[in-house]
């Protein structure tokens, strides 16, 4: 029993999630507020995951949350496109967070400079340094110097005294201001942070839209997962080595049956990866666009826009270079004047830039589902597409391309012209018109 007690005591003293935390008041959480992206954090909690690295069955994977916000008012026609943009930003945020997680470089520069200028008495005429190096009298001047003198004199006569007085006005005012300053302290605190990475194989597992008309606030979030296996899949998609994607033992439903239905389409954005009916790792990419007017052209334009964004998301899944740069500059200038007054000026500048770029050739993608619905928030029409990619479609597209790129076979063609006798003809076609089925 004694031995057991000792063993119990040991781990308690060694227990170290050694978190040394500074004291800070939390404040109350007000009910009308909710954390940005809360639904996504709840999803992660529900799965038993945590942000960052997770391990299951000996395998590591990264879980991230990307949060975005719509900048458009709910009354605007462009609100729906603004939501799509918000999801794209959320995705970019998730990727830049992952880049920062890998490595972030921070450069810090703090400087503090103090200058004091003290004067007392009347400034004397400086005889020693102001020796006149020019001619002693007029007769000693050269012709050139006499010409300069004449021009100066004529110019002085033609310029008005008002304009003469204005010359140096700003400099004199500045000098007066400087003369009144006794000392000045300039403090500058500058921090710059950068991170960049090539992200391949980051897929979306959950996306959420939260719209609150009372505050005109629309937040979106998505939960992304990355693992080394996904990188292999993404690389296989690029290189065409589709064997890596294949596992006939893990067949699932056909891709068309895996497409979300109804209202779920409104809140589903990004690329989702899962196996198809052949057991091949495939992609479903969701995107949407607002329909600007009631015309058919407008609808088609929205569908084309959504299709382009969905296809672009597949390219981004394969490989995307992301870069983030953050800078904060704080200035504080304290000026003490000769009359005893002290002025303090502070300035803070914050700059955050994110860049993401992706390019590549997409072969074998197809629109697997098109839809038009009323948006649940604004009731305005929305068009969306689901674009799929699978190894079998990519193979088919490749062989189609090869076939069409071949030169047509010229042998066996006939140029003989034959005269025909047209016959009278009257017929039609129907299907599915059995009244018992109506």
């Amino acid at each position, binding site marked *: 029993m004694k*031995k*057991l007690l000792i*063993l*119990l005591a*040991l*781990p308690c003293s*060694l*227990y*170290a*999630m*050694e*978190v*040394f*935390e*500074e004291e*800070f008041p*939390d*404040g*109350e*959480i*007000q009910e009308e*507020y*909710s*954390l*940005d*992206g809360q639904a996504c954090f709840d999803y992660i909690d529900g799965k038993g995951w945590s*942000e*960052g*690295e997770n391990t299951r069955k000996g395998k590591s994977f990264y879980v991230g949350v990307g*949060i*975005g*916000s719509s*900048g458009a008012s709910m009354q605007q026609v462009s609100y729906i496109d603004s939501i799509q943009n918000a999801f794209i930003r959320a995705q970019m*945020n998730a990727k830049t*967070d992952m880049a*920062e*997680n*890998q*490595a*972030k*470089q*921070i*450069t*810090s*520069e*703090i*400087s*503090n400079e103090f200058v004091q200028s003290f004067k007392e008495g009347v400034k004397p005429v400086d005889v020693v340094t102001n020796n006149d190096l020019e001619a002693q009298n007029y007769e000693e001047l050269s012709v050139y110097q006499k010409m300069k003198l004449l021009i100066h004199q004529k110019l002085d006569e033609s310029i008005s005294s008002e304009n003469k007085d204005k010359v140096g006005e700003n400099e004199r005012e500045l000098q007066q201001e400087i003369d009144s300053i006794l000392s000045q302290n300039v403090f500058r605190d500058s*921090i710059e*942070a950068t991170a960049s990475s090539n992200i391949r194989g980051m897929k979306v597992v959950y996306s959420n839209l939260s719209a609150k008309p009372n505050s005109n606030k629309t*937040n979106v979030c998505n939960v992304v997962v990355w693992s080394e296996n996904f990188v292999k899949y993404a690389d296989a998609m690029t290189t065409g080595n589709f064997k890596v994607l294949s596992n006939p033992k893990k067949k699932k439903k056909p891709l068309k049956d895996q497409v979300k239905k109804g209202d779920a389409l409104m809140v589903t954005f990004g690329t989702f990866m899962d196996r198809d009916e052949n057991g091949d790792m495939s992609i479903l990419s969701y995107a949407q666009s607002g329909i600007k007017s009631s015309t058919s052209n407008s609808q088609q334009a929205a569908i084309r826009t959504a299709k382009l964004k969905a296809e672009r998301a597949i390219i981004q899944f394969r490989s995307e270079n992301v870069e983030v740069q*953050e*800078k*904060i500059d704080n200035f504080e200038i304290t000026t003490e004047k000769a009359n005893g007054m002290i002025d303090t000026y502070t300035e803070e500048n*914050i*700059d*955050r830039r994110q860049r993401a770029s992706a390019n590549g050739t997409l072969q074998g993608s197809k629109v697997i589902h098109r839809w038009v619905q009323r948006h649940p928030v604004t009731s305005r029409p929305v068009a969306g597409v689901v674009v799929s990619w699978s190894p079998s479609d990519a193979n088919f597209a490749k062989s189609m391309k090869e076939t069409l790129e071949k030169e047509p076979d010229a042998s066996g063609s006939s140029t003989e012209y034959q005269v025909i006798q047209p016959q009278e003809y009257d017929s039609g076609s129907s299907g599915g018109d059995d009244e018992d089925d109506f």
Partner: protein
Amino acid sequence: MILDLLVAMMKTIFSLLILILSFSLFSQELFSTKFRIKNEGQNFFKLDAQAASLSNNIIRNNAFLSFISPEEVNKDFKSCWKKFILNRSVKIEIKKSKYKQIAINNEYFIYQTTFNPKDVNIINVSLNQFKNFCKIN
């Protein structure tokens, strides 16, 4: 007899389990602190930029933790670090840091920054340089 054996076996398994647990929990040293941003009704983009910048500020102010063990941490080192980085350019590389919004109220947005000092590398400053500076100052 069998019962005694069973009890002895369970004791052994239980004590082994505690040993294993203690090793897995041992010393995951994390620095975590909260900070707040005034709620001025700013939009998400501005708020996120402010939070990211303040988080970097906290990392910079506490980067000295990468030099010293948790037992050595005291206010003297912290104030010495503040003097050390004055009028000096310091380059830091960090992995796996994160900041997260944890609460909102009428006055403030509250965030938390977390990082492991072992994942911090101060590139252009050595431990000796810092410690010598602290001795002199």
